[in-house]
C-alpha cells in the first residue's frame, strides 16, 4: 500500500506492507520496522524500533487529527492510486474579510454599524455561548460592508457574522 500523508502541512510518502511480525514500512524511502496493535477504536499502540507510542485518532467533521502522546497533529491522507483529490495541505492564506461564528451561540450585541471603519483586532460582534460572551474581532483594518447577523439571532459555527473590506 502506498499513501501520501500530510502531517501539519508536511508531505510524506509512505509505503506499507504487512508482515508476520508487523509492518514493513518505508517513510520517504527510509525503511522502518513497525508493530501496531489496536487498543480500542481510535487508539493504537505503535512500537517503532522498540519505542512505544500511544496514538489516538480524532475525527471531527472533515478534519482528521492524530495525537501522538500529548501532541496533536493535523493529518491528511491520500492513496495515490485513488481518484479522490487531496485537499490543500494548510488552509489557504486567504485575505478573507468574512467574520464567522467560531461556535454555535447567540448574537447578543453588535459593536459597530454597517459602513463603520474598524481597526484590526477591533470587536465587531459579541456572541454568547456557554455563559461566555465572546467578542468576534475584525482580522484587519477596513470598512464594515455588511452585518449579517441581528442581535438576538442564533448562529451556528461557521455562519458569517459580518464582512469587512
Amino acid at each position, binding site marked *: *500500500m502506498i*499513501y501520501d*500523508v500530510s*502531517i*501539519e502541512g*508536511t508531505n*510524506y510518502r*509512505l509505503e*506499507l506492507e*504487512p*508482515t*508476520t*511480525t*508487523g*509492518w514493513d*514500512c518505508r*517513510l520517504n524511502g527510509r525503511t*522502518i520496522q*513497525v*508493530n*501496531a*496493535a*489496536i487498543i*480500542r*477504536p*481510535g*487508539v*493504537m499502540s*505503535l512500537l*517503532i524500533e522498540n519505542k512505544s*507510542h500511544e*496514538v*489516538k*485518532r*480524532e*475525527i*471531527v467533521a472533515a478534519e*482528521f487529527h*492524530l*495525537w*501522538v*502522546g*500529548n*501532541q*496533536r*497533529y493535523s*493529518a491528511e*491522507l491520500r*492513496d495515490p492510486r485513488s481518484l479522490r483529490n487531496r485537499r490543500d495541505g494548510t488552509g489557504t492564506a486567504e485575505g478573507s474579510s468574512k467574520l464567522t461564528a*467560531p*461556535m*454555535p*451561540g447567540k448574537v447578543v450585541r453588535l459593536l459597530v454599524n454597517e459602513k463603520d471603519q474598524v481597526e484590526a483586532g477591533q470587536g465587531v460582534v459579541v456572541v454568547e*455561548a*456557554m*455563559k*461566555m460572551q*465572546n467578542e468576534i474581532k475584525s482580522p484587519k483594518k477596513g470598512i464594515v460592508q455588511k452585518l449579517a447577523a441581528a442581535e438576538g439571532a442564533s448562529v451556528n459555527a461557521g455562519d458569517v457574522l459580518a464582512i469587512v473590506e
Partner: protein
Amino acid sequence: MFKKVLIANRGEIAVRVIRACHELGITAVAVYSDVDRASLHVLKADEAHRIGAAAASESYLNIEKIVDVAERSGADAIHPGYGFRSENAKFARACSEAGVKFIGPTAAAMELMGSKTRARQQMEKAGIPFVPGTSRGLESFEQAEQVAKEIDYPIMLKAAAGGGGKGMRLVRSRDELRTALESAKSEAQRSFGDSEVYIEKAIVSPRHIEMQVLADEHGNTVYLGERECSIQRRHQKVMEEAPSPIVDAAMRRRMGEVAIRVAKAAGYTNAGTVEFLVDRDRNFYFLEMNTRLQVEHPVTELVTGLDLVHLQIRIAAGDRLRFAQEEVNIRGHAIECRIYAEDPDNNYFPSPGKITLLLTPDGPGIRCDSGIYEGWTVPIDYDPLLAKLIGYGTDRDQAISRLVRGLDEYLVGGIKTNIPLFRRILSDQDFQAANLDTGYLDRLLRTNRVSRGDQAADVAAIAAGIFAALDSAQPMRNGIAHESPAAGPRAASTWKRASRIEALRQ
C-alpha cells in the same frame, strides 16, 4: 440525618454531591432540563425529575419548579451546588418556607454577603482588614472622581452585586474613569440587574488567596486552610492550589482567624469561603465571602483529608463539628485544573459538541471529578466546565509532576478543551517557582508559545497510514500488525469493528 436530598444542579458538581449522598446512605434526587436527559447526573441519581427547557431560566434557575420537585419527591433537603441559585437568598428562603432544608448558610447571611457594600460595612465594624475604598455604591461620576483622587490611582471599579469579574474595571488614571464607570455600570446592570458600582484601591500584582471555613449550627466555626487562586483568565479562576506557596503556618493562622471573625460577624453557618487579596508584602485584605461550596473545594479536601460535601450535609442536618481547630491537619499539596470545553488555539472560545473519544487519567495522586462521558454531547446552554483534574503530592513538585502525567493520560476527543493550557502553565518556570499573581496567566498567554518539537510527526505519518490500511483490511486477515500469532486475528477483528464504529460515527 436526611433521607432524601435534591441536588439543584447539573454537571460534575451534581455528580459529586450525588456520590456524597450515596456514601451517606441518602437517596439522591436529580433535576434535569430537556437537553440533560442523558447527562451523567441523571444516570447516577436515584430519582430524576424533568424541570423544563434547556434555558437555565426555564430549569436550573427556576426556584418554583425546583422547590415543587422537592415537595413532590419528599426531599428533606436541597443541595444547591455552585452557580445557578446557590447564592440566592430567595431560593434559600423558598426552601425553608416549603419545609425543605437548604444545605448552606441562612438566607440572612447570604443576603448580607450578597451585597458587597453591605458586607463591607458590616465587616468594617468587625475590624476586618479591607483594601482602601468606598464601602457604598457610587452616586455620581463626581463622587467617583473624588474618591479615586483620595485613595490614588490605580483604582478598581466593582459591581456591588457582582462576582466572577463581571462589572469590574481597572482604572489607571483619571482619563479612563468616565468610560470605565459607564461600562462597569452597564455590565453590572446586564449581569446582575443592579448597576451599583463601588471603588477600591487597585493592588499591584496581587494574589488571590481564599480561606475555607466551616461553621455548624451550634456556634462552632473552624478554618480548613487556604487556597491560592491567582491563576485567572478574564478574572475567572483556571487553576487553584492548596496550600498557597506563600502562606506559612503563622500567616495561615492569622488569615484563618480573620476568616472566622468574618463568618461569625455574618452569623454564618455551613461551608463558606472568605476571599482575600494579598499584596507583595503578604498583607491580606478581605474581598468578599462566597456563601457556597467552591468549584475548587477538592484541593482543600485532599490536603485536609476531609469531605466538605459530607460535612455540609451533616451540618445542615444539625450535627456538631466532630473535630476542633487544632485537629485540622494540612498535609501535602494539591492542585486543580478546571477542564473547560474551550479552544486554546482560538481565543478560548467555547467548544460544545459531541465527545467522540474519552480517555481519563487515574492512578496514584489523581482525582478526577467529571460530569462527562464518551458519546455525550456537551450542550451549548451552560457553563463550559467539563471536569476537574486534581493532583495531590507529598509536596508541590510531586503534585505538579502527577498533574503533568495525568494530563498526558487525558484525552477529550471531538471537542476542544483547555488541557494544552495546563501543560503550558505546569511547565512554566514562574509557575514552578510559584511566582504568581492575578496577572500571571494573562502575561503567560501574551508570550509566544514554545514551538513544539515535531519529532513525532514521523510517527503520526506512519499511524495515519496504518489506520487507513486497517480501515480497508479484511477481518481476520493474516499478518496484521502482530508479533503474537494469538493476538493477530483478534487485533484485526478489533480493528475492523473500530473502523465500522468510526464510520458510523461520521
